[in-house]
């Protein structure tokens, strides 16, 4: 335990005044912890990392960590990250987004970043709700669930983030819940090392905005629910469609090795420069 605390201190910004903005029990901090452990275990230098985030509770993560950090606009983190990566492909560019960020306002950018297969590691913190603006529905709010803008229950079908990203051509797509610390660390580390566009969806509880309006009495209830329903994707595939509805498939959905945009760019450049000579 002491070791873990020490590690976190190595990566936090000492000049930044704490406490942080997250509610007690919010899963966002757990994701940050996992990201730090992954970066540390891979030995990536802090100077080589650019952490880019959108707007929302999830967007507040970068300010606390001692990397190069950019807090952008709502939904557009991937566009900034694309510019950074192409400007300097040597950098490890990590993007943190909420579900609203990634799939609602930023949906267009997500599908194109995946299609380009540009070398970005994207973490989508899916709490099924808009946290920061006070619990409105997002495009991942499950059908029938309640929010401040769906007082009669969500009437639209929700997005499956992993499926969308996979369909658009990402190299690596995985999912974990914040109750699976080891799996989460493994998925984030694998993503960080994977070339091309890679995305890890992290199911995280927001009791303040989602839990209260739906059937969860406390934060602990939400964590218990995550623990009970997360199943490995291999097992999930064998379940009946009825059973699948209750469960969360976790693990790796796609892992391939297509050439990323920045490699393609550099290859084409070599070719034209060669021809010119």
């Amino acid at each position, binding site marked *: 335990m002491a070791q873990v605390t020490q590690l976190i201190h190595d990566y936090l*910004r000492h*000049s*930044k*005044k704490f406490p942080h903005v997250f509610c007690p029990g919010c899963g966002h901090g757990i994701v940050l912890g996992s990201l730090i452990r992954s970066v540390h275990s891979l030995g990536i230098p*802090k*100077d*080589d990392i*650019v952490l*880019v985030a959108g707007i929302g509770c999830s967007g507040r993560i*970068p*300010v606390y960590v*001692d*990397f*190069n*950090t*950019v*807090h*952008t*606009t709502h939904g*557009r983190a991937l*566009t*900034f*990250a*694309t*510019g*950074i*990566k*192409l*400007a*300097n492909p*040597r*950098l490890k560019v990590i993007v943190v987004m909420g579900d609203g960020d990634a799939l609602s306002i930023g949906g*267009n*950018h997500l599908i*194109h970043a995946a299609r380009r297969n540009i070398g970005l590691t994207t973490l989508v913190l899916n709490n099924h709700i808009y946290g920061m603006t006070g619990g409105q529905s997002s495009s991942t709010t499950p059908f029938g669930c309640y929010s401040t803008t769906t007082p009669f229950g969500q009437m639209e079908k929700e997005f499956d983030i992993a499926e969308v990203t996979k369909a658009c051509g990402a190299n690596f797509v995985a999912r974990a819940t914040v109750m699976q610390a080891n799996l989460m660390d493994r998925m984030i580390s694998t993503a960080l090392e994977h070339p091309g566009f890679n995305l890890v969806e992290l199911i995280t509880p927001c009791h303040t905005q989602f839990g209260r309006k739906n059937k969860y009495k406390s934060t602990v209830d939400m964590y218990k629910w995550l623990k009970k329903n997360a199943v490995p994707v291999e097992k999930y595939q064998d379940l009946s469609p009825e059973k699948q509805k209750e469960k969360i498939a976790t693990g790796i959905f796609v892992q391939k090795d297509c050439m990323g945009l920045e490699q393609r*760019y550099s290859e*084409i*450049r070599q070719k*034209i*420069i060669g021809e*010119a000579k």
Partner: protein
Amino acid sequence: MATKSKKKKQTEKFALGNEAVVEGALLAGCNFYAGYPITPSTEIAEEMARRLPPMEDGVFIQMEDEIAGLGAVIGASLAGRKAMTATSGPGFSLMQEHIGYACITEVPLVLVNVMRAGPSTGMPTSPAQGDVQQARWGTHGDHPIIVLSAGDVQECLEMTVTAFNFSEKYRTPVILLLDEVTAHTREKITLPDPEELYVYSRMLPSMPPEWYMPFEDNMRGVSAMPPLGSGYRYHVTGLTHDDHGYPTSKPKEVEHFMNRLFRKIDQFFYDIQIVDEIRCDDAEVCIIAYGCVARSAELAVDMAREQGEKVGLLKLKTLFPFPRPIVEKMLRQCSSVLVPEMNMGQISREVKRVNNGLTKVNTLNRIDGQIITPGEILKKIQKG
């Protein structure tokens, strides 16, 4: 003789306004372009797509929309590139949130907006000057911004270089406004000798990373800006921030920050305001114009002078911050001024604001997608 003509070939070129923008950008050191195509700015993207990839580290990318285009440009600039994008009316509207972001985070970049007749999709291939106030006030919140314009193809090149220089010097986005006529006119331009061209690049920090403060105040109000990944780790946010870049809402820190944003532009007003004074010395009537209208106006001045009327032209190349001192001088000197423009009076309202009863301000406005001719301007002057 043979060498002389060879040299001539290298420095002169027949180019579109939009192509001249690309020449200027490359001379200024631009090596990153991201954008989304829209008439009448498209040739800028197309030319960049040809020119950048063969360059040592040139990057061109066509993004999924204009919001993404400007987002990528901001990211690239943070990573140390001289980056730009170009667009037209509808795309310019989409970019507004990111223009505000670049202002508050003090990210240098150049944005060329080739104005077309609007509102909305309007008349894509017709000229207009309807985005002048949008360039100044389009994004939300209070902030200064530098807006430049160009009236002929040579100026497209020169003002693009100036736009990059200002953006790097003052750590701010610079908007270059063109009109469809200027962008699509093809004429001979002279390429300046790169050795002799004044090119400014952002200041890099010289102190050790522990001492670096990304948004520190100093005499210039502009702090050094290291590229992401160079060992200076700091936080960039669109939230109002303190000198370290951390979000703040403490009134004292907010006020200090906002005042610095304005001061860094205000105190260099004389560096930033660029105008051409054409036959203004003894002018009794002054035409104040910009873009392609200034070209018509210049001819109108010649025509009027031939008839013995003392008319001059004040051609605005900097639109914002509004070149108040020079405009004021002409307002004091002349018995009347005329502001012809292809909108309902977006610059004449600035002139009237400065005028404050000094002289008579006449306007000539056209919003039918047609250019304003020298004859029309002359007629208006004669009517007084």
